[in-house]
């Protein structure tokens, strides 16, 4: 008794905590948010290969089943989740991860808006504390099944009975038991075929066929539903789902046609933007029809200029589509076939007019073709359209510096850096070079140092850092940097030459001679190295 008196407070706290967490889990938390947030985290941080996409797919299964089990028409979230699942299942390019991220971000932000600040905070807390639910618990589902069957046995009234069969159908759907799902939904429909719940049961039944891989049945069921209830909210969703079933079946041409029909028949509906997007997406990724894809994306962007999907096609999807031409353009630059490179960059820009790296690539080709004015104008245009594209910035800096527009190179470099943290050593290297030309050695040090930090094998950065030290009369630091450059690139003639010059002025003539001789081995006929060697011979009065 005295034990209870002493410890009752602890028991009360434990009981309150259990009650709170039960209520919290049952009423407050949206469990699908944990899965969606985890999927987005994986898409952002971990998905590097197409195989990694599968892990995202498994996280979507439970939220999709939860969405379909609703009594009312499923929200647009279902479409986004299914799209994310489709891309995760059949992606061909790792860049398609951007599409998955778009869908997940759209659902999460819509849910956050709908649930309000406090619930969203609890969802985030839940995500931090608990892991996602990847599989549904079979024992739990079986317990639900038993309970529903028992309630069905003692229910006589039509409406509650229909509701119970509908719930049972959803339980079987989650158990992936198609025959039982079919039976339960058909009973729900039979009880009152004209009710809203019967329409939803028809929708869920068609969806069960799709889920079980019976695509033809699913398509015909969805199409019948759309015809029978043209005014119902589910009609357009059924049309969309029929197109999705065709896509999952692999009948891409028909799927695309169905998306186009939907967008044409219901131009103002909430599904028409995504239908146009899908028409373009399937055209490009599954039918290899770039022209049609561009046409549908243009329609989408013109009809819904503020739409998040339309912005996505402009900023991401078009660039993925253009990336093949862009890559070919850069390969042709390397092969010094500048005219063909320009042809490819033009094709890339035809698909994605805002593709900064293609514009900068075109600028490089113009520069090497000797048209500096054109090169500068293209570099400037590249910076206007995408200063956040690091490849474009690095190449624009290359053009500005080589066209002697050093102030512009520094201004653009600093502006790009103010917008985001650059991650490539070449960016800091080019900016450092521009500072060297302006004799701003302090800043040059800083940029070459950053460049080396990002890429410790970047020999040009060591060499130029050595030059910067030398200008500042930090002679031993300079010698060390030239040596570090040589350690990483034994055949780097300029670093050997600079080390030779350094030794020469430090009066270490024999060491200097060794470096100049090495330069002449790497680059025979290097006149300046020969001149230094001659001077050394004259001073020492013997062949070093």
């Amino acid at each position, binding site marked *: 008794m005295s034990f209870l008196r002493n410890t009752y407070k602890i028991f009360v706290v434990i009981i309150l905590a259990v009650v709170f967490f039960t209520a919290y889990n049952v009423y407050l938390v949206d469990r699908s948010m944990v899965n969606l947030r985890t999927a987005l985290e994986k898409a952002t941080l971990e998905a590097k290969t197409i195989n990694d996409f599968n892990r995202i797919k498994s996280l979507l299964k439970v939220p999709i089943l939860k969405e379909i089990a609703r009594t009312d028409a499923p929200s647009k979230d279902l479409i986004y989740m299914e799209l994310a699942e489709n891309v995760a299942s059949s992606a061909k390019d790792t860049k398609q991860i951007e599409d998955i991220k778009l869908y997940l971000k759209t659902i999460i932000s819509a849910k956050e808006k709908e649930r309000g600040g406090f619930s969203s905070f609890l969802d985030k807390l839940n995500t931090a504390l608990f892991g996602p639910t990847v599989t549904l618990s079979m024992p739990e589902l079986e317990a639900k099944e038993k309970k529903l069957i028992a309630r069905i046995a003692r229910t006589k009234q039509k409406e509650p009975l229909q509701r119970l069969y509908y719930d049972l159908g959803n339980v079987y759907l989650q158990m992936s038991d198609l025959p039982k799902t079919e039976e339960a939904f058909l009973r729900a429909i039979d009880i009152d075929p004209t009710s809203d719940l019967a329409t939803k049961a028809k929708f869920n039944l068609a969806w069960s066929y799709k889920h079980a891989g019976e695509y033809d049945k699913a398509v015909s069921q969805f199409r019948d539903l759309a015809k029978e209830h043209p005014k119902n909210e589910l009609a357009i969703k059924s049309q969309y789902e029929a197109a999705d079933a065709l896509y999952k079946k692999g009948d891409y041409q028909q799927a695309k046609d169905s998306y186009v029909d939907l967008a044409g028949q219901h131009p103002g509906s909430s599904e028409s933007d995504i239908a146009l997007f899908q028409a373009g997406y399937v055209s490009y990724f599954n039918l290899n029809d770039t022209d049609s894809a561009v046409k549908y994306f243009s329609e989408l962007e013109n009809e819904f200029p503020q739409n998040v999907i339309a912005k996505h096609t402009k900023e991401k999807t078009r660039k993925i589509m253009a990336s093949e031409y862009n890559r070919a353009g850069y390969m042709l630059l390397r092969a010094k076939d500048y005219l063909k490179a320009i042809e490819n960059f033009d094709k890339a820009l035809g698909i994605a007019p805002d593709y900064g790296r293609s514009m900068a690539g075109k600028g490089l080709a113009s520069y090497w073709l000797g048209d500096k004015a054109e090169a500068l104008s293209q570099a400037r245009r590249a910076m206007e359209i995408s200063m956040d594209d690091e*490849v474009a910035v690095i190449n624009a800096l290359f053009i500005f510096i080589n066209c002697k527009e050093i102030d512009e190179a520094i201004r653009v470099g600093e502006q790009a850096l103010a917008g985001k943290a650059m991650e490539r050593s070449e960016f800091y290297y080019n900016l450092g070079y521009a500072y*060297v030309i302006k004799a701003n050695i302090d800043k040059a040090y800083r940029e070459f140092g950053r460049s080396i930090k990002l890429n410790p094998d970047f020999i040009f950065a060591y*060499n*130029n850092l050595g*030059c910067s030290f030398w*200008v500042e009369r*930090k002679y031993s630091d300079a010698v060390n940097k030239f040596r570090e450059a040589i350690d990483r690139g034994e055949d780097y003639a300029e670093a050997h030459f600079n080390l030779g010059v350094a030794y020469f002025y430090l009066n270490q003539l024999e060491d200097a001679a060794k470096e100049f001789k090495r330069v002449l081995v790497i680059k025979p006929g290097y006149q300046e190295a020969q001149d230094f060697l001659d001077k050394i011979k004259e001073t020492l009065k013997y062949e070093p």
Partner: protein
Amino acid sequence: MKKGFWILMLVAMVAISVYIISSARAKQAMPPREDVSGKEASAFSPKEDALGKPAGKGSEQLKVSGPVWVEE
């Protein structure tokens, strides 16, 4: 018993610290080495730095490596 608990806690804390540090390092993985075949060596001729101080002797004879361009 109490001693054992603290030893376990200490081991767990060390293990967690090692995990956190190693995963933070992994995230800072270096980007792949870029092809920089656009390199150009150019003459470099500062007689003085931006503050007007005289540059190191022979600075004008050093070879600064030129800007680079990159592919994707």
